[in-house]
């Protein structure tokens, strides 16, 4: 392997004028660590907002009748819940983790384009305000679900030009632009900014996973953004790309939408795979099993993710041959995923396990992921999907992935890198309580959705036949528990940030460039750029990772 790293594309700017205290988190900082934390904290705020919507949804579904809120309000709730959770929580929090960790992990002083980085971040609160502001326009927020399928999304009962659907589309387009800017930045950083000796196969798997995920953003987001712009034209300019009443084709939108939104689920899960791959070696005290295979399988997933989207449209009048073709590609994509699961079990097996909070969340997330992978295969089987498509079975599947695996994985990462980010340790007891509540709440909330779907309960309903009441009550109780579960986390994080125990550079005895420097890292991360001499995950091998550890 040749060493192709380019030490430094030195950049700008007015860094030295930036404040060094807490105020920097509220301004236009270009430090990737500040921006990373800005992303994470902003995203968590929206996670709570989306959670309030979820509580209202589960409140309505406690009883079969539509009795808590009006049906239009219910429909706005699930539309905004899905949109906020994806575009204002999951994507931004993962972008935040990538921002914070990637430069540290590859031995760079910052991202390739620090100002672009700040601009991409500041677009998030802006489109967040646009989206939440749609509660104030006449007619209320968008009510056509996070898919916004036409013709429903083109119906505009309020008759206003500036309506909820319009603001929704505007927010999605802004979000797309922000994510494309972020993707360009991260991909460039990984290609151009690696420290000396940081060859491809010395990069931590998290970096591989983030790279694979951001490449997806680059090819997928243009499709979604184009699809959304055309829908916007239909809505406000009277064009007829999608309106069947005027000769348009509503299914065309579905192709645009899923050509991005399927790969988008891998934008979400790949970094979480990366987190699992970082954490299991630390807390099992063993090297990652099959490092190279795990690293490369992320890129294979990136490739395959572009050719499976029709599995979301099996019931949309899709011809038989297309159903079969996309069934086979979808089945294929679970192979690299299965390899990873095996690698993680192989890493944990025979290790010396430490069940600190990050490890609990990571292992809980892995279990939930395996469950959702299995229901995913069931959904990929066309005959089964014909029955459960658009039922609660699908809602169960993706909440196991997105809450069970992704949110749990994100919590694992936040606990694991909290001492690095703040220089202080979180409270372990509260962390374990948080884990217990989350694991229990997630399963109570989302397991019942599977029998409901098999029984034939459609998703997106404000009322349902009484036969479905039993499982819905359990799901709602689980949902409320899940709402409560964020409290110990908030108390823990805020309290520990202010007065937690101070920690050393490497409290977990973890191997990685970020653990060789102070907690929190100084402004430009590395005094001298690290010279990497080994593969990651050298647990039990007693080998140095860099040749200049004392000069960093």
């Amino acid at each position, binding site marked *: 392997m040749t060493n192709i790293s380019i030490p430094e594309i030195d950049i700008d700017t007015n860094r030295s004028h930036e404040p060094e205290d807490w105020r920097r988190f509220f301004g236009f900082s270009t430090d990737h660590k500040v921006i990373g934390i800005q992303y994470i904290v902003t995203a968590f705020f929206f996670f709570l907002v989306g959670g309030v919507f979820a509580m209202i949804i589960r409140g309505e579904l406690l009883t079969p009748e539509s009795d808590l*809120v*009006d049906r*239009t*309000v219910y*429909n706005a709730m699930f539309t905004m819940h899905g949109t906020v959770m994806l575009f204002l929580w999951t994507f931004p929090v993962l972008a935040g983790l990538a921002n914070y960790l990637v430069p540290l992990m590859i031995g760079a002083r910052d991202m390739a384009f620090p100002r672009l980085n700040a601009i991409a971040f500041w677009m998030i609160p802006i489109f967040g305000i646009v989206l939440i502001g749609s509660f104030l326009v*006449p*007619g209320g927020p968008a*009510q056509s679900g996070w898919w916004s*399928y036409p013709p*429903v999304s083109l*119906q505009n*009962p309020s008759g206003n030009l500036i309506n909820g659907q319009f603001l929704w589309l505007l927010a999605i387009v802004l979000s797309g632009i922000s994510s494309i800017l972020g993707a360009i930045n991260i991909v460039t950083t990984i290609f151009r900014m690696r420290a000396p000796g940081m060859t491809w196969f010395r990069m931590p798997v998290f970096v591989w996973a983030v790279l694979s995920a951001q490449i997806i953003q680059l090819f997928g987001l243009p499709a979604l953004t184009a699809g959304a712009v055309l829908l916007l034209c239909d809505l406000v300019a009277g064009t007829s790309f999608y309106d*069947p*009443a005027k000769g348009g084709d*509503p*299914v065309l939108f579905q192709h645009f939408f899923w050509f991005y939104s399927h790969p988008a689920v891998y934008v979400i899960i790949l970094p979480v795979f990366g987190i699992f791959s970082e954490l299991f070696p630390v807390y099992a005290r*063993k090297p*990652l*099993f*099959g*490092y190279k*295979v795990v690293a490369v399988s992320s890129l294979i997933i990136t490739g395959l993710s572009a050719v499976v989207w029709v599995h979301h449209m099996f019931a949309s*009048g899709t011809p038989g041959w297309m*159903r*079969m073709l996309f*069934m086979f590609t979808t*089945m*294929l994509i679970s*192979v690299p995923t299965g*390899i990873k*699961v095996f690698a993680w079990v*192989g890493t*944990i*097996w*025979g*290790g*010396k*396990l430490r069940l600190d909070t990050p490890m609990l969340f990571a292992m809980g997330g892995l279990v939930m992921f*395996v469950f959702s992978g*299995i229901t995913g*295969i*069931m959904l990929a089987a*066309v*005959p*089964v999907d*014909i*029955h459960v498509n*658009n039922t609660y079975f699908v809602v169960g599947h993706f909440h196991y992935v997105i809450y069970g695996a992704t949110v749990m994985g994100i919590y694992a990462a936040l606990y694991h890198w909290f001492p690095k980010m703040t220089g202080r340790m979180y409270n372990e007891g509260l962390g374990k309580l948080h884990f217990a509540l989350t694991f229990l709440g997630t399963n109570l909330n989302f397991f019942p959705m599977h*029998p409901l779907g*098999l*029984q*034939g309960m*459609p998703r997106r*309903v*404000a*009322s349902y*036949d009484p036969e479905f009441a039993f499982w819905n009550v359990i799901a709602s109780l689980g949902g409320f528990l899940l709402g409560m579960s964020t409290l110990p986390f908030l108390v823990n994080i805020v309290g520990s940030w202010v007065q937690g125990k101070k920690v050393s550079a490497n409290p977990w*005895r973890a191997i990685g460039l970020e653990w060789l420097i102070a907690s929190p890292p100084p402004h430009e991360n590395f005094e001298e750029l690290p010279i990497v001499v080994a593969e990651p995950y050298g*647990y*039990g091998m007693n080998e140095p990772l860099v040749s200049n550890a004392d000069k960093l």
Partner: protein
Amino acid sequence: MKKQTILTLAIAAIGIAAISWWVGQESYTWFPPQASAESILIDRLFSVLVTIGSFVFLGVVGALIYAVLFQQAGKYESGDGPPIEGNIPLEIVWTAIPFVLVMGIAFYSYKIYDQMEIRGPMEHDHSAAMVMSGSGDEIEVIAKQWAWEFRYPAQKVTSTELHLPVNQRAHLILKAQDVIHGFYIPAFRLKQDMIPGQAGNFEFTPILAGKYRLRDSQYSGTYFAAMQANVVVEPAADYQNWLRRSAATTPAIAHNTAFAEYNQKSTRAGWKTIVPAAPPIVNYSNPND
């Protein structure tokens, strides 16, 4: 020692296999009744998937639980585990296993799908269905925000309840009038999106007399959840009877949940909505819907 490990693993695998088989058999009870010929095939496929899935899930979770119970580091232990970085033969096997497994599942699903497609009236009903097929026995299904209406053009009957003769291939023509709706009868395990402007043919074979629910499965706006109808599968004689009686009844305004709810809640706290279509005027409607 080695032999003992293999023995333990084999016993564990057999135990997990037995549990998985049991769960797979249980899975038949998780569904509504098997009211169409297609549902038998789909439930069988699902049961196979549940069996395989349970085996994989229990295998992984079993290994993790074992590690948590027996492989924790001691409180003051600070050493590392064995530095195993991989195992090439094992990794190859572990790529081959999922590959073979999912391709096998895909082929089996393909076979089941194929059977669903070809299972026409010729194969299991040689009498009435053959005479009727293609001879004007099609039923038109009309979906609009937010009502179902069924038309039997040959018999000049309209209804808000879908009646079908048992053990005869049903031929439906699906028509959505405004937005996309989904035609979904859980007891039949079948669904099909209805795209406005594109009439769609849909065929299946009900095999169990009874009353089932038809639900809109593609989100269609404000009163989406209320867009349901009853499906009555009955013996051919009863079906013909019903058609005759209905044809002789003068059409009347049917009850429609969305329309009724919209008009009764004059003080709705929600936002402005698309106004529900007027309730269908039909020969037959069941007042208890």
